[in-house]
């Protein structure tokens, strides 16, 4: 999973099975936005291999911890997106219900 050196834990490559651009690109974004990261990138070594490598180099913190924080941040962002979206749908349905009280509205 993690390929780094035993002496320097600030530079590591993380190899993830069964993942693709979806997670890797989103993670690269959150990692790059972290001031502790000096370099971050990902590659898919072979297109028919379901595997992606993420390279993280930091200013001093362990790369593993920084990657974990990036995941945590991404999760918080996702939760916020979900809550905002649910609220927006609810608002839309409410205003629509006010405009046309007879209309059929599915609230799921």
């Amino acid at each position, binding site marked *: 999973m*993690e390929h780094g050196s035993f002496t320097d834990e600030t530079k590591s490559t993380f190899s993830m099975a069964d993942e693709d651009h979806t997670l890797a*690109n989103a993670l690269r974004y959150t990692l790059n936005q972290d001031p502790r990261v000096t370099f971050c990138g990902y590659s898919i070594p072979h297109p028919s291999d379901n595997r992606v490598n993420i390279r993280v180099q930091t200013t001093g913190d362990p790369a593993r911890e920084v990657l974990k924080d990036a995941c*945590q941040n991404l999760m918080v962002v*996702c939760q*916020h997106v979900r809550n905002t979206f*649910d609220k927006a749908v609810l608002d839309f349905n409410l205003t629509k219900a006010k405009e046309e009280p007879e209309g059929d509205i599915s609230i799921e």
Partner: protein
Amino acid sequence: MSGKDKNLHIMMTESESEQEDVGKEGIEWIMNLPDVPMKLPPHVELQRTRVECKGDAPIHTDTIQYSGAFASMGFDNSLRLDNFRNNFKIEVINLKGDDIEFDMIGIDPALANAFRRILIAEVPTMAIEKVLFANNTSIVQDEVLAHRLGLIPIRVDPRLFKYSDKDAPNENNTIVFRLHARCERGKPRLTVKSEALTWLPNGSEFPLVSDKSIPNSKPQTYTSFSCSQDKLPEFSKNSIGPKDSDIILARLGPGQEIELEAHAVKGMGKTHAKWSPVATAWYRMLPEVLLLEEIEDELAEELKRKCPVNVFDIEDIAGKKRATVARPRACTLCRECIRGDAWEKRVALRRVKDHFIFKIESTGALPPNVLFTEAVKILEDKCERLIAELS
């Protein structure tokens, strides 16, 4: 922030005021928009937040992700969660039946694209995977008919089912349909539609021929349901069936017959597109059309005529005709309006990099708003799994 950073900030504000003296109308207008931070010099801010569509090619198309990209100007480009929370907005434009259109504002394309990719390839649905033919004398070959059956959207909540993997088909992972159609001799041709698929809540009715060693037991079938699916509370009220009843599967001539059983299982779009819950899920960045100078009279008429999607209007002020941007959202950025001599100096076409017009068309298994929340949940699960793996 350290003292050094503060100095940088002061220097920044000075240079900023110089920049403002140079002043461009279009840029000023952009800077007055509510969702743009007022920190970077206007021309850099413009590069950061807008894609400019020039006559030959768009420029500044990339997003700047690196946290220290603007460090020399004292601008922090790192992700601040509270900042994100304050700026992020979603507005539902339309939600009707299987379609939703909404604006997602204040998010990076990396995340917007992740949601789109998950919607297409990783939100599970149920689709017909196995077809057992008892009889098929129609001109549609077995494999072609099986493929057609696979593509029929099934109206059922996939969250109530498990992946079948290597388990024997049971009531928790398989839905069984039966189709028996026959065109009698002397009758006109018969069109078999998806409505002919009838749900078998008790599972397969075809007996397994191989196993005859146990004489007194129940006859074995291709599925092993322990109870009837219509007794389960989720399905007792709304029965399972194809979403659309009028999908043509085959045409039968006199004397032809189809008898089959179709087994639907749970799967994901990355295995086969038949499991994709969306017809399309796509987004585009918000177009922004600016008039860099007053466009009047004949020129205004010409501009209005040029645009194939009718973005511009002409308003009459004191006998003068002046062009205005009335419907920028309709703009397809065909660049017809900036073609020809000097037009590029009059009209600016841009896209807002963090404003996405997102559209989801569901195939009908789940409503489109539920699909989106499911997609976001799947991204969260991925993160959670990775954290667990790293710890």
